[in-house]
């Protein structure tokens, strides 16, 4: 039966059909839904979990594979930076049960802090990488990845990109493969990567790459479609779909379903059949470089770009010199950037940080939106966890000068992911740094996943919850306090006091995300126009429910959730429940 599925959903279906029994991931756009959909299958067949970070998730999958299970982990591109350490050595140990790691790149940076190309990891770790171009291939390649993993004794990376992960197209489903768990045999030379064993293993890894290159020459997923001998296109993943739409039968195609290792003879033969040869690949020039290295002349990045997404019009313009026309409106259309939601518990903290003129070491999550106007209360955002460790470095770099006027802000899930190690460093190497944990009891930006701090597992069942206060104390922070960020007076007092202390401190700003179904909303607040002096004090919190128009300030009752933050700013008592 054919069903419309997101690419990510189709990967999850592929896992199920491949007989996968252990899935461990950390959420990250655009990869999150793979594991969410995987968790809708019977956990007795396919157990799923959210791990604290991608390194843990990858190691769980490695352990499960060694035990004999077909195992899986998913992450976004930057998540693979975190999981790179286990990946590079799992390449040496190889597998027992098949091991597949899905990584979702984000060309165009729809929801990411950089535009890195994960194909470099497959090359670096010397593991095969498959790249599907639609949902049907997402499912098929996932299943194929397990066959390759077990046949060649290697982890396999499944590379996705935003448009593949987040597009729906038709998928035919099949039954799950019933797979007996293979025996676990202790094998020190295979699984204990001390130098003596690893030296031997490296030889095998290089032999494996040679065998996989041979496989790439004839693999079904590396397909030639001959239409024209004028124009040839070598491409993979979503770019194949863009190229097909742009060029149709005007070009011939070599579609590479396996992007590492790349074939040599197959490409040479294809190149010989066409007059003009293009490599169409988003992000880095991986296929292009391979072609040039093997002596094949191609047109690549000199005509295309290393940045952003390509789409059909760009390809048509570069290859055929054709372009579309359209109508523009002669009006200044204001931009509509993403904002903190109405009732967001992060808003109060950022309002106070701005008011106090504090330097803010930021992190990755919904609260990164605290950097946007009018709050503009963030100085840095680098990667998960960098707020805490970065603040310590900043304070050391300024010789303590900023210790009473700089803070780190980090969400609960991000703190568990990689903030806690930075906090240990603050305590151990002593800086008088102030860390604010924005505990909204959920992993927010990726769409509400449970995490180790909120007391629920992926299935919504009760689970152990990290006691953040006790954890902060246990690592050596004596000054730990919990505040309600919707109480501005309390929030300001806490931040002022903790900043002034000659010791490191942790403030936990605790209030659940306003979008959680378990959070009860109050009725919308109203402006009493008799009392309102149009001073615009309330507009400073950047709430999307507050509008400024001809009649002064109004509150959009469809957006307001009655958090009351704005009413605390009104000196005239004009904002009423």
């Amino acid at each position: 039966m054919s069903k419309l599925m997101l690419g990510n959903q189709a990967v999850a279906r592929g896992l199920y059909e491949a007989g996968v029994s252990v899935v461990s991931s950390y959420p990250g756009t655009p990869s999150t839904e793979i594991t969410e959909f995987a968790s809708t299958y019977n956990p007795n067949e396919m157990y799923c979990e959210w791990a604290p970070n991608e390194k843990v998730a990858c190691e769980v999958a490695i352990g499960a594979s060694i035990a004999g299970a077909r195992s899986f982990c998913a992450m976004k591109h930057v998540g693979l930076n975190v999981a790179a350490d286990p990946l590079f050595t799992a390449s040496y140990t190889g597998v027992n049960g098949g091991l597949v790691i899905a990584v979702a790149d984000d060309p165009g940076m729809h929801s990411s802090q950089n535009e890195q190309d994960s194909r470099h990891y497959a090359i670096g770790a010397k593991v095969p990488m498959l790249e599907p171009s639609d949902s049907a291939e997402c499912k098929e390649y996932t299943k194929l990845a397990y066959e390759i993993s077990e046949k060649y004794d290697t982890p396999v990376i499944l590379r996705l990109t935003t448009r593949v992960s987040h597009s729906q197209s038709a998928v035919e489903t099949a039954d799950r493969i019933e797979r007996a768990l293979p025996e676990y045999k202790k094998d020190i030379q295979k699984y204990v990567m001390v130098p003596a064993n690893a030296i031997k293993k490296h030889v095998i890894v290089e032999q494996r790459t040679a065998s996989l290159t041979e496989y790439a020459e004839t693999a079904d997923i590396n397909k030639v479609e001959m239409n024209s001998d004028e124009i040839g296109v070598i491409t993979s993943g979503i770019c194949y779909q863009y190229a097909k739409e742009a060029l149709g039968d005007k070009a011939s195609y070599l579609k590479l379903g396996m992007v590492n290792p790349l074939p040599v003879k197959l490409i040479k033969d294809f190149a010989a059949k066409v007059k003009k040869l293009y490599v169409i690949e988003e992000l880095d020039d991986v296929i292009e470089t391979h072609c040039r290295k093997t002596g094949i002349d191609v047109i690549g990045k000199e005509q295309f770009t290393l940045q952003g997404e390509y789409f059909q019009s760009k390809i048509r313009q570069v290859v055929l010199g054709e372009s579309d026309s359209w109508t523009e409106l002669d009006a200044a259309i204001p931009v509509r950037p993403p904002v903190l939601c109405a009732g967001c518990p992060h808003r109060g903290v950022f309002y106070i940080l701005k008011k106090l003129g504090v330097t803010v070491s930021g992190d990755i999550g919904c609260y990164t939106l605290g950097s946007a106007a009018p709050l503009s209360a963030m100085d840095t955002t680098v990667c998960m966890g960098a707020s805490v460790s970065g603040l310590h470095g900043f304070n050391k770099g300024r010789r303590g000068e900023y210790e009473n006027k700089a803070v780190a802000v980090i969400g609960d899930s991000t703190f568990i992911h990689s903030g806690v190690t930075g906090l240990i460093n603050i305590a151990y190497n002593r800086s008088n740094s102030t860390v604010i944990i924005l505990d909204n009891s959920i992993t927010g930006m990726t769409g509400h996943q449970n995490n180790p701090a909120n007391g629920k597992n992926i299935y919504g069942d009760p689970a152990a919850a990290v006691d953040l206060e006790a954890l902060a104390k246990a690592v050596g922070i004596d000054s730990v306090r919990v505040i309600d960020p919707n109480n501005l007076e309390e929030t300001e007092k806490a931040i002022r006091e903790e900043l002034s202390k000659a010791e490191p401190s942790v403030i936990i700003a605790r209030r659940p995300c306003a979008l959680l179904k378990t959070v009860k909303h109050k009725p919308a607040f109203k402006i009493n126009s008799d009392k309102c002096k149009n001073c615009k004090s309330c507009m400073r919190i950047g709430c999307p429910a507050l509008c400024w128009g001809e009649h002064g300030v109004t509150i959009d009752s469809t957006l307001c959730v009655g958090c009351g933050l704005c009413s605390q700013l009104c000196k005239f008592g004009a904002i009423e429940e």
Partner: protein
Amino acid sequence: MQTKSIMIVGVGGQGTLLASRILGSVIQGAGHDVKVSEVHGMSQRGGSVVTYIKYGEKVYSPVIEKGQADIIVSFEQLEAARWLSYLKNGGTIITNTQKISPMPVITGAAEYPDGLIDKIKDKGINVISVDALSAAEQAGSAKAVNVVVIGVLSKVLDGFDEAAWENAVVECVPAKVTEINKKAFGLGRALV
């Protein structure tokens, strides 16, 4: 058949994703090849959001670009204006008349332009404008704006029967709001 391209645009939180899933389900049920491209993550937080639906014999790219959309369905005026350039010559815009101020307007850094719908009409573009917010409130929830607009689209788009639309609405919305959404769909259909 030629590939048909429909865009659904709006403000994060208005339910463009659900609307695109309803449409995708109707189209797939009718046996077409279809691709629906969604938006997840940061831009969903009150930002300008767009989803693409393309269908026909065989669809390759899931993305619609400038000058390529047959129909743009907008949940908000400013978004209709923002994405106008994506419309094909001779295409149709369906827009909700609701205005939602973006943050630069809220903070006073920019103004919400006046008379946007008239400006679009002045370009000779076929515009269907409806007050979907009032209809949604009448149905029982302001959140049903998306399904009201889907009701309007169901009258404009040829080739799919009403029952298929209604089934898709029921299949895609949460069970406890089925009745509100069925009503919203019907009210949407009655607007054109």
